[in-house]
């Protein structure tokens, strides 16, 4: 008879304690803040659902959400096709394949605030290479004052930082296709487009799903890069959800509304994370069964 040993449960205790202190307790505190009002000094007054009501009707929040969705939409529309394009044109084997992989991975290793600083300097008209060049070409470019300049810079920064991720994932998907598929396509005299449409794209479906979800989730939570680059400006032009949230919570010390806001933000992130989790586990099953 097999003896059961339940001692292994104790091994997950450290994780439980860690999660309790890093996530559960802070989250509970946020929930408590969201139904109360405070003027500091740890004195609280019951507010009920007032903050949720206020936030749901707040033009400021809906605008920030709108900007956030536009931003995520634009970077996905650029990064996914560009990533696939890069992956299709990367060398398949040899020294150059390794060199390309390392070069592609470099931007991913740079911390967010450093990326923000790099682009902040890069785009400056007085000392930055990009800003100075554009200025001497006679283009009116100033990301601290121009709406379009700020948006283009923030998007270019994200594309620079994260297209590699999509490219590397797509590359991994492409590498896993056996040569026999390409040989069969050659025998059938398939065009390049047909090979892409009927062999490469279906084989990349799994990794692309993951890439899209990862990029959507990350861009939906983006804070550091635009904060360092534009600080949410000019005006509110690049004030995304998390930047607006920090302004509200720490800048204005409106803890109640900020807590209600962050709980709604949290719900949306939970839905996206769950979809991501389902997609990943289902892909595992499909690949395990195939």
């Amino acid at each position, binding site marked *: 008879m097999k003896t059961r040993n339940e001692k292994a449960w104790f091994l997950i205790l450290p994780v439980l304690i860690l999660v309790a202190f890093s996530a559960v*307790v802070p989250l509970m505190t946020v929930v408590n803040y969201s139904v109360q009002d405070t003027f500091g000094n*740890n004195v609280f007054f019951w507010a009920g659902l007032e903050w949720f*009501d206020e936030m749901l009707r707040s033009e400021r929040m809906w605008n920030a959400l709108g900007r956030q969705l536009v931003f995520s939409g634009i970077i996905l529309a650029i990064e996914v096709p560009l990533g696939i394009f890069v992956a299709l044109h990367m060398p398949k084997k040899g020294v150059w394949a390794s060199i390309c992989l390392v070069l592609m991975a470099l931007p991913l290793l740079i911390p967010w605030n450093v990326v923000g600083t790099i682009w902040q300097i890069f785009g400056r008209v007085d000392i930055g290479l990009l800003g100075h060049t554009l200025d001497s070409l006679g283009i009116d470019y100033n990301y601290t004052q121009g709406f379009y300049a700020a948006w283009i810079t923030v998007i270019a920064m994200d594309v620079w930082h994260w297209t590699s991720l999509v490219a590397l994932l797509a590359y991994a998907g492409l590498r896993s296709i056996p040569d026999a598929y390409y040989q069969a396509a050659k025998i059938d005299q398939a065009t390049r487009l047909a090979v892409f449409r009927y062999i490469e794209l279906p084989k990349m479906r799994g990794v692309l799903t993951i890439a899209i979800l990862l990029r959507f989730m990350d861009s939906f939570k983006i804070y550091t890069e635009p904060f360092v680059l534009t600080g949410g400006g000019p005006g509110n032009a690049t004030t995304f959800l998390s930047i607006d949230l920090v302004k509200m919570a720490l800048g204005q010390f409106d803890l109640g509304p900020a807590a209600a806001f962050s709980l709604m933000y949290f719900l949306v992130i939970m839905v996206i994370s769950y979809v991501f989790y389902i997609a990943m586990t289902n892909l595992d*099953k499909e690949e395990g069964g195939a």
Partner: protein
Amino acid sequence: MAWMAWTWPTAAFFMVIAAILAVMSYLAIRYPETPRRGILGIETTRGDRLFISLLVAGFVNLAWLWAGLGTQWGALALSLVLAAGIFRTV
């Protein structure tokens, strides 16, 4: 605990969640189950269905408040109906 700014309604909320989790854990050990495929086309266990129900309840409550349909108990009732539906069909 004072720094966490507890109130009775929020404490009750978390106690209910904790109680549901405890009951679900007990059921999972006492009556093991196999995942099944429902109308969403994904494999779900009771835990998945509970998670989806809680998420739906969150959005239903917010939508109720946004639409100004009156007392929040109505949203709770609607959430419970939807949760029953989710447990049966998803």
